[in-house]
Every structure is written in structure tokens, then in C-alpha cells.
């Protein structure tokens, strides 16, 4: 079902600080939808508005055709997996999971049956009589999700559910979350600042910044055709090059760009461009190939020459920062083939960079500040802060 969950013109301020700003968003039934953005972008506030823990200053929330804006949290068919799990420390795992059924005064037999079912589903039956303090992070995570879905909500909200886990466990839990989603079929609204989590789990992603939606789309759309410098810089790494459109190809599919100090660059038009348009070219580092010798450019490829200014060996790839005139381009090269005795690239070496005209994309929205995201992903872009996330 389309339009399963609809946010209509949602605004929320805490005192002077506007945290969510006239936000519109539509989520389909049964999908995993991620709200992705840096801390302070308002994503957690939006989630809390959805849970009923905050009331929006303006706007409506419609869930499954019903306006739930004024419905108290206790009555909403929406449950939350909290970032710190918020398991009740004085109750056994069984009682924690049974909580929503207990408070709704479900009969004992049904509670027992449902708790057993969920304990089995999450493979935590042997933890049932422990208390939360005796569980590992991953187990607590499972209990938190089990507790949230036992009452069969229409919508499950997940607030950075993996943030407290270490990397390996996080990857394992991601797969588990995906399986759980397939199993229970509940719509997931997933809040995260981790692009990897969002990309691997989501059907759709909304990139949030400064209380607004920057872009909505599938993971591929978000990564491959970002609409703004913020999206391009926040999701993955990229190089920004400022230039003007010099000419159009005959079929109108490609622009030729004039960029200060570089040869003409070809770029695919994701939308019609005119000559003299000022544009920002974004090229992802992994799309750039490097070569130690000047070779004849392949059809459709751009080649620029530069000097290696810095490089970092990361194991699975090496990152090169190459000075090309006034531009410093980053190229990330994966090691599909690695020979110890091969002559490696060193600092100050000349290097030829090339990328296909289809792999760059032109941005019309560009803000200087977004470039800072590339070196410091935790930067507070709008200068606004979400009081809930500050603590």
C-alpha cells in the first residue's frame, strides 16, 4: 500500500530552535524506510513525533488512512526500539517482552503463548528468566525488538538501534534485522546517521538536514544521483569541482564542462543543461581509475594529470589525494590484485586519473559548508541542535 504513513507539513521547535521544519514525507506499507542524517538534523525528533512522545507544533501524521496526530502514545499502533534499548532493569526478559500485553490486560494464556512465540522467533528462549543486566548487547537488542513487536504494531520505529554495538556485531545484527523484517512484515521506520546501515537495509531513504528532507529515494538513487552537495557529501565520499557548461553533445545527453586548470570534462546530463550554466561536478573517488603512465583515453573517459600529494593504505583499498592544478582529487583504488614486489605509487609521483563521463554528476545546489562534511562527518551543518540527541 502506498501512502501508508504520511507526514504533512510537520514542524517542531524546542524554544527558539526549530528542529523539524515543514516536513513532508510518505512511506509505503511493508518497507524499510530510513531517515538518514547527521546528529541534530531532526531525525530523532521526527521519530518521537511519530511515536507520540512529542507533539508537532504544526502538521498532521496519517497512518494507514487514520489521522494519529492527536492520538496519545499509549494508543498508537506504533512501537519503538530505543537507542539504549530502555529494557526494564527490574524485570526478567520474559516480563519485559510481555509488558505491552500485561498493561493492556490481555488474558494470561494469550500472554504466555505470545511470549513463547516471540522468544522462539528471536531465539532467546534460554534467556527468558534472566534480567537485562545479564545479557550481551546483541541479546538486549533482540529483546528490545521482541518487546516492541509482540503487540503487532502497524509500524516499528527504530532509533539508531545498532549504535551501541561494536562493528562486527552491528553487521550481524543488520542481517538479523533484515530477516526479522521479512518474518514479521511490519513497516520499519529506521533512524540512523550511518549511511552503511541505511543503504544495506532500506527500500527507501530520506536524507535529512537541518529539519528538512534533502532527498528521498532508493539507496541507488541517493548514492548515484544525489540532488544536492549535502547528499553527495554525507553519503559516501566525493570530489567537488566547480565549472561552467561549455557545450552540449549533439544528442543532448552530455555536457562538456570547463573547469579552471583542467582539460575539458565530459559529464552525463541527468537533466537538460544550457551553455554557461554554473555547475558543480561531483565525482566519487572509487569511480576514478589511476594510471602511472599516460595512455590513450578510452571512449567517453575524462583524463586529468596530477601529482600524488598524500596516500593512505586501508587494506581493502588505497586512497590517493592527487593535486591537479588548483584541485585536490581523491581517488580510492580497490586492491583486486596486489603484488608485494610491484612498484607502488609514492608521494610526489605523477599520476593520470580517469573516469567515465557517466560516473560524474552535476549539482545545481551547492553549499560550501557541505564540503566540510567530507573531512568531518560529525559537523553540525545547520548550527541547529536536537536537544534529544545532545544528551
Amino acid at each position, binding site marked *: 500500500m502506498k501512502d501508508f504513513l504520511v507526514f504533512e507539513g510537520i514542524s517542531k521547535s524546542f524554544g527558539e530552535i526549530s528542529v523539524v521544519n515543514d516536513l513532508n514525507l510518505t512511506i509505503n506499507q511493508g518497507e524499510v524506510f530510513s531517515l538518514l542524517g547527521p546528529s541534530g538534523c531532526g531525525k530523532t525528533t521526527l521519530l518521537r513525533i511519530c*511515536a*507520540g*512522545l512529542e507533539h508537532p507544533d504544526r502538521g498532521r501524521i496519517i497512518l494507514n488512512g487514520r489521522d494519529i496526530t492527536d492520538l496519545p*502514545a*499509549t*494508543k498508537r499502533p*506504533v*512501537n*519503538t526500539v*530505543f537507542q*539504549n534499548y*530502555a*529494557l*526494564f*532493569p*527490574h*524485570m526478567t526478559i520474559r516480563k519485559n517482552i510481555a*509488558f*505491552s500485553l*500485561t*498493561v*493492556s490486560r490481555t488474558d494470561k494464556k494469550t500472554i504466555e503463548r505470545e511470549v513463547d512465540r516471540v522468544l522462539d522467533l528471536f531465539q532467546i528462549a534460554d534467556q527468558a528468566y534472566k*534480567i537485562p543486566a545479564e545479557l550481551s548487547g546483541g541479546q538486549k537488542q533482540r529483546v528490545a525488538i521482541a*518487546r*516492541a513487536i509482540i*503487540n503487532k504494531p502497524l509500524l516499528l520505529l527504530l532509533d539508531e538501534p545498532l549504535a551501541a554495538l561494536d562493528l562486527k556485531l552491528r553487521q550481524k545484527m543488520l542481517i538479523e534485522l533484515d530477516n526479522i523484517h521479512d518474518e514479521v512484515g511490519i513497516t520499519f521506520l529506521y533512524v540512523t546517521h550511518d549511511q552503511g546501515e541505511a543503504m544495506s537495509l532500506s527500500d527507501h531513504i530520506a536524507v535529512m538536514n537541518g529539519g528538512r528532507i534533502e532527498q528521498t529515494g532508493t539507496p541507488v538513487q541517493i548514492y548515484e544521483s544525489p540532488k544536492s552537495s549535502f547528499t553527495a557529501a554525507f553519503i559516501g565520499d566525493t570530489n567537488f569541482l566547480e565549472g561552467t557548461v561549455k557545450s552540449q553533445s549533439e544528442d543532448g545527453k552530455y555536457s562538456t564542462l570547463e573547469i579552471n586548470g583542467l582539460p575539458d570534462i565530459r559529464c552525463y546530463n541527468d537533466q537538460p543543461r544550457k551553455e554557461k550554466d554554473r555547475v558543480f561536478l561531483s565525482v566519487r573517488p572509487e569511480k576514478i581509475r589511476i594510471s602511472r603512465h599516460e595512455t590513450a583515453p578510452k571512449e567517453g573517459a575524462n583524463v586529468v594529470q596530477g601529482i600524488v600529494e598524500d596516500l593512505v593504505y586501508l587494506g581493502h583499498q588505497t586512497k590517493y589525494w592527487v593535486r591537479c592544478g588548483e584541485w585536490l582529487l581523491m581517488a580510492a583504488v580497490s586492491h583486486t590484485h596486489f603484488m608485494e614486489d610491484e612498484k607502488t605509487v609514492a608521494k610526489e609521483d605523477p599520476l593520470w586519473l580517469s573516469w567515465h563521463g557517466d560516473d560524474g554528476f552535476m549539482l545545481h545546489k551547492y553549499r560550501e559548508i557541505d564540503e566540510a562534511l567530507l573531512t568531518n562527518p560529525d559537523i553540525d551543518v545547520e548550527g541547529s541542535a536536537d536537544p534529544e540527541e545532545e544528551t
Partner: protein
Amino acid sequence: MKSREALLTLPSLLWLILLFLIPSLLITVISFKAVDVYGEIMKTWTLKAYGELNLGSYGPVIVRTLRLSILTTAICLLIGLPASYAMARMDWKSQQRCILLLILPFWTNFLIRIYAWKVILHPDGILKTALVFLGIVAPDTTLLYHEGTVLLVLVYAYLPFAVLPLYSAAAKFDFSLLEAGRDLGAGIWQQIFRIYLPGIRAGIVNAVLIVFIPALGSYVIPEIVGGPSSEMLGNKIAHRVFIDRNLPKAAALSSILLMFILLPTVISLFNRSGNRKEVELL
């Protein structure tokens, strides 16, 4: 490691032995001794002190002592629980200020604060005059020397002792748990009884002990603001010591008081050791 931990408990163990166990044993021993007419304790053993405790006169005092102590504890909890909750939810600065306000009265001597109540509640005192003026009480009512007066001043004296442990438990409580409860459908009362109160259980237990035990042994408060009809066991013990010079009898009464405190504590200790988890939570 275990023996080192045991070593660290040694000072408090010595403290307890010196200042609690030995005095308690002394009192128990004295209660079985005979006394001469001058109040000198003699070497002979006797059950006379207990035999002379007649239920007709001490029964009502014991019942009143228990009643007043239980009521004091209950009222202190009823006021202290919301107060400590409100304090814990304030910003840090306001919390500090509230704690200061709680501790401030202790800078004045306890006796003087109790006498102050006598002034306030005096037939010509400010409260009585105001209440009569407002038509709330009749001019011939006495505010002093009632059981109610004793209860009022007991609550006044022990409330800070209830609020402090309650506050320290509430300050450690993770209030996002209440939101989790709300999210899972728990209304306000269910949040309180299923999540909040169990969450600050340790603080409640401490508050009860810290109020109930001293209240049981109250002597000064009923002596100053109470009348003959509101005497507590503490007054009786004092009378036996200072007026009758009959230490064994006072010791016998004290032993009874000690039993009131020790029996429930020991029983609950045994109950708890059967339930490992609850001990861990405390």
C-alpha cells in the same frame, strides 16, 4: 581478592560491634538484672523487669508508638515520593538548590526546631490565631499536646531523611524507561507502579528504614509537643531511667523496642537471601 574485600569491611564491622552489638547486648543483660532502691544494679539475675511490665498500661503505649511510626513513615513517603521525583527531573542547578534547602534546617539545633513548633502551635501562637481568624478552628481548640501534633512534628523532623534517599534513587533512575513504558501502552499509573517505583525500590527501602526506626524510638518530640495521652515508648523508657532510676525496667522496654526493629529486618533478610536477584538489585 575475596579476603581483601573482607578486610575492607573490617572498620565498619568493628564500628557495628562496638557501637551497636555491644550496647545492645549490655541493655539486654541489664534488663535481666535486679536493682536496689537507690537504682544501683545488683549482681543477681531476675525476670522482674519483664514481669512488672503490665500490658494494661504499656499495651496502648506500644500500639500508639507503632501507629505513629507507621503513619510518619507513610506520610513521609507520600510527600517524599512526588517531591523526589520532581527534584530529579529538574535541571542540575535547581536540584542543587533543593538539596541545600533540605539540609538547611539541620544548621539549627534539633531541640530548638521542635520548640519552634511549640511556639507556632501555642494557643496564643501565630497559627492558632490565624486559623481562628479564618474560622477554620473553634477558639477553644488546642493544637498542642495531641497525638496529631506529635505526628505533625514527627513528619516535619523526618521528612528530609525520607526525601534524600528517595532523591538519590530517583536521580539515578533512567527516565527514558517511562517513555518506553508509554510507548508500549502503559498509562500514567502503570508507569508509576510497574516501572518507576520498582526502579527506585532501593531508595524506598532506605527511606522506610531511616524514618521508621528513629520514629519508633522518638522521645524528644512527644516529650515537648505531646501530652500524657500521646506518650510514646521512648518517653516511658526515659521515665524509668530519670524518674524511677530503674535501669533494668528501661532496658526491658528498650529490648522490646529492639525486637520490633530486628524481627522484621531479620525476617526480610532471610526472605531475600532466598531470592538472589532482588539482593543484586538492591
